[in-house]
């Protein structure tokens, strides 16, 4: 059933461009207005109208005017709820979108900032398989987090976002497409396992010796810290684990990650190996530099440096 519907939808979009004129991406901010909000009855709405019809015929047949009045009231309230559903969406504004970081194959977190000049409730947003609902007060901004699946590294356009609401009674569904013109950068997926980078003076004993001498400070444990750096005695006096910080020691051998040394591999394998190394270097808080064709990134460390390198890897042709 679902694939059939999907094909029908694709056909409709091909054949009826006017119906789907908002298929093309548009610039942010996007404000929903009447020409792009569609209203259809929900399944419950259809069932309810059948019920109203039965009630109408019953009331007419028994010539019972009170029952007829009740039926008319219920019917008119249902019709009015359609306008309320429309008004729930009309004027909703998508201000901006912030993308998180994700490697290919993992969903990427997107933060949508919706704002509105009036109160709206029970607005639902669907992005692919992920869906969420929100309410927004007058003049407020709602940050909505949704996950978008990714398949490959590089720039990726945003999928269409469906915004809909069946507020207040669930009888009618007002919906609209949001297709912001925005691309998100997906980082390459690091390889599972492989050789370590050839680093100069990679000598564990030597390193430990040096580290022992130049302990700079204690800091809180972060995921990825080697277990042997944990300051067990100091940690026992604290709530959290403490780690001996060697960052400032600057004595760990830095890695020079170089595209050219990975000959014998195709481009994507090189990228995924480099990505793994960058990850490892970041996890070990090592300083590293990255040489890529057309992009040489100098020695550095920290989250920004890491993101810079991953972005560079992601954007390789």
């Amino acid at each position, binding site marked *: 059933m679902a694939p059939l519907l999907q094909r029908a939808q694709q056909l409709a979009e091909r054949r009826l461009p006017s119906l789907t004129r908002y298929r093309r991406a548009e610039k942010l901010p996007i404000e929903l207005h009447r020409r792009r909000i569609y209203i259809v009855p929900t399944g419950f709405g259809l069932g309810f109208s059948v019920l109203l019809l039965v009630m109408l015929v019953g009331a007419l047949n028994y010539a019972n005017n009170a*029952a007829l009045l009740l039926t008319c009231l219920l019917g*008119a309230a249902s019709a009015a709820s359609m306008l309320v559903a429309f008004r729930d969406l009309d004027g909703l504004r998508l201000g901006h979108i912030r993308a998180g970081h994700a490697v290919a194959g993992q969903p990427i977190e997107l933060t949508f900032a919706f704002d509105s000049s009036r109160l709206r409730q029970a607005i639902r947003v669907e992005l692919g398989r992920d869906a969420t609902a929100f309410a927004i007060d007058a003049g407020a901004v709602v940050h909505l987090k949704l996950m978008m699946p990714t398949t490959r590294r590089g720039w990726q356009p945003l999928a269409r976002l469906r915004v809909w609401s069946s507020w207040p009674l669930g009888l009618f569904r007002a919906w609209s497409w949001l297709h912001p013109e925005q691309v998100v950068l997906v980082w390459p997926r690091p390889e599972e396992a492989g050789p370590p980078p050839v680093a100069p003076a990679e000598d564990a004993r030597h390193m430990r010796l040096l580290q022992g001498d130049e302990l700079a400070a204690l800091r809180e444990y972060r995921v990825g810290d080697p277990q042997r750096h944990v300051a067990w005695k100091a940690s026992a006096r604290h709530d959290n684990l403490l780690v001996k910080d060697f960052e400032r020691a600057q004595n760990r051998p830095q890695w020079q990650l170089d595209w050219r040394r990975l000959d014998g591999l195709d481009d994507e394998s090189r990228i995924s190996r480099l990505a793994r190394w960058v990850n490892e270097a970041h996890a070990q808080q090592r300083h590293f530099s990255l040489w890529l064709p057309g992009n040489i990134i100098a020695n550095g460390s920290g989250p920004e440096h890491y993101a810079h390198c991953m972005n560079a890897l992601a954007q390789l042709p």
Partner: protein
Amino acid sequence: MKRVPHPKGTVDAPIDSRAFDLLSATLALVLALHASHLPWWLSAALALILGWRWWQRRQQTGRVPAWLKLPMLALLTLVVIAWYGSIFGREPGTALAVGLLVLKLLESETERDARVGISFACFALMVALLFDQGLIATLVVALGLLPALATLRALQPARLPSSARRTVMSNLGLLFAALPLALLAFLLVPRLSTPLWGAPSPRQATTGLSDSMTPGNFTELLTDDHPAMRVSFDGPPPPADLRYFRAYVMGYYDGRGWHRRPPDPRRAVAAIEASASVSYRITLQPTRQRVLPTLDMPLQAPAQAQLQPDREVLADKIVTEAISYAATSASRYRLQAVLDPASRQRGLQLPTGFNPRTHALSAQWRQRFGNDDAAIVRAALALFHDGGFRYTLAPAPLGRDSIDDFLFSTQEGFCEHYASSFTVLMRAAGIPARVVTGYQGGYWNKLADYLLVRNSDAHAWSEVWLAGRGWVRADPTAAVRPERVTLGAAAAAGDQRDWYRNDWLQDVRNRWDVVNRWWDQAVVGFDALRQRGLLTPFGIRDTDTGMLGLLLAISSVLFVALGLGWALWRREARDQLRAAMHRLERKLARRGITRRSSEGPQHYLSRAARALPAQRHELEALMNLYLSLRYAQDHPSTESVRAFSVAVREFRPLDVVK
């Protein structure tokens, strides 16, 4: 903000406790509305099931297992069949529907279940109106939509928390917004002139007059104060002692009770000479009888009704719905001045072998007064007046010779005892007499100038035939209890009334009847005939179905356009702060402190503070707030702007000190 746990198939998402509570409340209301016509034990059992299920789901969510549900379902069906004999028809169908609705709650766990339950509950609410379509019932049922709508709202995800009052208000708002369209549709939906399927089953034994009268069968009627009819007169109403509404004339006595003779088509309508007449219009509640009560003594039959030989008015069809008819009656008259022998014989009929002491008394009177029939009538009325008779709605039971027992031993009873015994006395004395039943009295409603006659105003009196005067009304009850005639049945009953019939309450209810009358006329009585005459003021005499459909379509489009206008209307995202400042300027300008075009807010408000020294602190506070909101921050928070506008709204400038 909350994440929907079942993003795709939202209909399968379990409902939260708030939605379930509201669903239970809706069903409880439906059950309460139907309780009056369901057997009490069924209502009690269903209420018990409902309460138990509500409690059970509070402890732990989950459906009730099938082994518990299915036997209940089977039991419900069996019980309905056993009690009503069938599952078809209005009463058994309703019992089954309400039962199924309550059982539906046992398996209501998901949104889909809740929606099905609510739809069904709406239907059950409508069915409740098939039993009682009075104003109060309709209002209560319409209010029953509120929990139903609130349940539907509670099924929506991501609602902002709102108080119960706000939920009620928003649902009421929806209903009120829908009301104009609903009223229009109500006016214009073409009515059926004949029902599509079986006419509604007759209402079970309504209290009302019947065409026979045995002692005691008025008791129920006299304690039922539902409206029987409403009468509006052209001109002033007749005085209280002339408000006799005639329904049945009973001429056949079998020793126990009085019966109406089957109509004889060969007999002509009794001739009448009228010297004063009254015109009026009666709106009669459904009686499931053919008789149309008319003021004593009807001159002509209303449309679609026939005058019977004894001047009863019978409609061509049984009155199943409230009807309205105009009639003219004679207030002073001479009926059947010449009595033919057959009529005379009918007027003297008595069974043999009953009531020997009554016959003896009549014979004694005849002997004493000779041929003076009027004197015998006076003697009988004097007997009732002075003979120690008591008016009571709970008289002692009577034996085989019921008239003898009543006249000489129990001496207590109400109108039908008096009318019956008086008529028997007259007949035994050789004076043609008969019993007439109908209504007497009523409440004159000054607000709308009409007479409200209740079932409890039912009455029985006698007519005797006197030479030269024809049939004359004689009311022996009036001889015993004159208040019965001048003040009404309630006054006559004295202390025998229930607590809820005390005077002020009765008075309130009588006045409130104006609204009931309006509802009955405007809504309940709006039938196919009235609908056809809808456009008469606009020169269209007969509005047919096509015309109605066209009107409905046009006006629906009009309403849709209005609604769309509302939906598309967007308040300009205006500067709230600026608007509030403008309001403050307007308020001050009314006191003569106008802002000059070149004047800044600080200068202006300082000047205002000097001009209004009594409010200096207030104005300075407003000024400081405005300046900090306007100039100290880029985006002032909505709350503080709102606080400023509230402060401006509450500011009342006093008079200026010059």
